[in-house]
């Protein structure tokens, strides 16, 4: 029988294009030290460590949990390393939660990172494979055709993507940790920025960041004992589907829909749009906001863009989406999923500072990876689940 678990504390690094001031271990410890301070725990309180990151090739270290064992305080403890492509930060959070929910451990430290400036993310994502024709143009080139499909299917006005970008970058300026902070970015400026992979423009594209995120997840007793509130984990879900198959919906993947359906069911939510107070969802290219609003069931298929266009996904809207600035502001690939999970937790803990959504009691964290094929979701709340 599943036991209750809660996020006791979170921490992250100051994300930047290149964190040249630290080693990989130093980057991680910046996030970990903040999370443990936020959770008010010491090393003796941690029973196990779960670390996640994207491909080893980004940093050129094979199975880095081995080299990092001392830095993670994991020596002498159980240590796991999760890798589910871009959703890894999300799935790592869920694996850590399950260690507590199963009754195996009382408190688990979880961390996700990427120090991708050590190589070059585009290179790592586009290494030519023998016998293959090299048409890949990185992640942007992969997703741009599917964005075009969404625009065609939904009839969305062209400006919607730019609206998301301007909103997220302005939100990021309220987040002291965000990589990109553009308080004054306008929709017009976004629309005037260079087209990279038509229809995706420069200002609609996530940066490449070095960064880490960490959380301490604890059991019910730890959650009850916490002085200033925790984020109770109400539900988690994960789904995978193959990259390519006949009849695959690349715009509104079944795996995402199924993951969301399970999440809402397990969390007892019947009307996500009215019952969820904030959503941290994985938007690396602006158009993914309306696409995921539909995939997650916040809006009917074909209508996600209407919520964005109406301004209701802004900080003061009905469903603030990515109040932290999201992936459009900060994208250390391995960490981005955990940033979504932890930012959702911060909202219901009341710890989101200048981008706090007033009265947020329930928030969703979402991550996706691969060719939109891996999905990891969680719902957290200020109160215990039933």
């Amino acid at each position, binding site marked *: *029988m*599943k*036991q*209750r678990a809660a996020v006791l504390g979170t921490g992250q690094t100051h994300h930047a294009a290149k964190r040249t001031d630290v*080693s990989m271990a130093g980057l991680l410890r910046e996030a970990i030290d903040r999370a443990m301070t936020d959770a008010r725990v010491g090393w003796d309180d941690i029973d196990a460590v779960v670390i996640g990151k994207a*491909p*080893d*090739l*980004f940093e*050129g*270290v*094979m*199975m880095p*949990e*081995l*080299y*990092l*064992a*001392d830095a993670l305080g*994991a*020596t*002498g*403890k*159980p*240590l*796991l*390393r*999760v*890798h*589910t*492509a871009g959703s890894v930060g999300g799935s790592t959070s*869920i*694996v850590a939660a*399950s*260690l507590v*929910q*199963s*009754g*195996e451990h009382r408190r688990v430290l979880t961390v996700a990172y990427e120090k991708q400036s050590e190589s070059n993310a585009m290179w790592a*994502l586009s*290494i030519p*494979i023998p016998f293959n024709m090299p048409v890949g143009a990185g992640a942007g080139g992969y997703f741009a055709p599917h964005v075009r499909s969404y625009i065609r299917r939904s009839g969305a006005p062209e400006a919607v993507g730019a609206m998301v970008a301007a909103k997220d970058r302005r939100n990021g300026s309220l987040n002291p940790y965000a990589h990109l902070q553009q308080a004054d970015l306008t929709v017009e400026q976004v629309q005037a920025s260079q087209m990279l992979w038509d229809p995706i423009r420069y200002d609609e594209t996530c940066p490449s960041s070095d960064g880490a995120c960490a959380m301490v997840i604890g059991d*019910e007793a730890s959650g009850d004992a916490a002085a200033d509130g925790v984020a109770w984990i*109400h*539900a988690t*879900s*994960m*789904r*995978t*589907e*193959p*990259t390519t198959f006949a009849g695959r919906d690349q715009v509104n993947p*079944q*795996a995402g829909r*199924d993951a969301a359906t399970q999440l809402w069911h397990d969390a007892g939510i019947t009307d996500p749009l009215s019952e969820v107070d904030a959503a941290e969802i994985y938007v690396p290219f602006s158009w993914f906001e309306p696409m995921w609003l539909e995939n997650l069931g916040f809006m009917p298929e074909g209508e996600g863009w209407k919520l964005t266009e109406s301004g209701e996904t802004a900080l003061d809207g009905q469903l603030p989406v990515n109040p932290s600035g999201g992936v459009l502001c900060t994208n250390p690939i391995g960490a981005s999923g955990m940033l979504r999970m932890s930012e959702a937790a911060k909202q219901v803990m009341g710890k989101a500072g200048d981008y706090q959504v007033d009265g947020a009691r329930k928030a969703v964290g979402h991550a996706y990876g*691969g*060719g939109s*094929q891996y999905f990891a979701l969680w719902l957290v709340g200020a109160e215990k*689940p*039933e």
Partner: protein
Amino acid sequence: MSYSETGSRGGATRPAVVGFAQSDCVRRTQGTTNGVEMLVPTLAEAFEQTGLSKSDIGFWCSGSSDYLAGRAFSFISAVDAIGAFPPINESHVEMDAAWALYEAWVKIRTGEVDTALVYGFGKSSAGTLRRVLSLQTDPYTVAPLWPDSISIAALQARLGLESGRWSEKDMAEVAARSLADARDNPQAQRSGEASVADLLDAPLTADPLRAHDIAPITDGASVVILAAADRARDIVSRPALITGIEHRVDSPVLGARDLTRSPSTEMAGASLDVGDVDVAELHAPFTHQELILRDALGLGDGVRISPSGGVLAGNPMFSAGLARIGEAARRVMAGDADRALAHATSGPALQQNLVAVMEAQS
């Protein structure tokens, strides 16, 4: 979703192994590095053994390594072997699939699912394995020297030889026994009859190691199916109930710990009841490492060690640890053992270790 108030774990959710299948251990598969060719028939065999199909599986978890394949995201293509549509509840560790089994074991114990399928695969022959593994070391002060995995193990072996913890003869006995046992394992890559004297006559290939002290390079895949105890009884007559799994990691600093012992294995074993096991399948890619593990786990002379031949008979990277769990479970399921132990290792010189104990479900 309803939650437990008392925090007690019902026995009904305790996972048991109900199926195990593996591909033949071969020096070089003609298949691809994403493992699909090795996995498709192995999955089919596991389903046939158990009478289950993919729609019966509540959670999937795999272990593999991008660096073995030379491809980022290499595990994604492996998903094609499953037929993952409708979408599946699935995860992956970049570790030996024994740790994927651990993740699946935990998942069943949350009560969220009652069956799980775990798979591991690796095509070690694609690259130069001993060179690739040097990238597991400290990226600043060690890896730039490219210390290959065999040389590191050999350093460890000499420490034990010169301090009297083990002898060349002890090491050769491990090899002789493993190769002899492997003759009964139709999937073994290496097997044979050799006397300890003959083995010790062979030349040193990585002083102080000889060829027989070192596991071969092997391509392979394996699959284990888990089910919660009450479901397991419906699937096979004698499931191997997992009574516990523990794993720990040691410091990576090779020059700062006593390499002739395995504290992480000692700790993992101490948290389990490893006494009275009939069989112990140990993941020891070097003969001296089996001696370290037997000592760390306190396994006496009455325990049958690695009757499959162990990984000296075939060492499919990222699948070998899972296969130890499968082999141990198989003995229990077949009635050849009542209690069995399986061990898996990761990293240079036995840095990280996992121990699982299983017994016949009554």
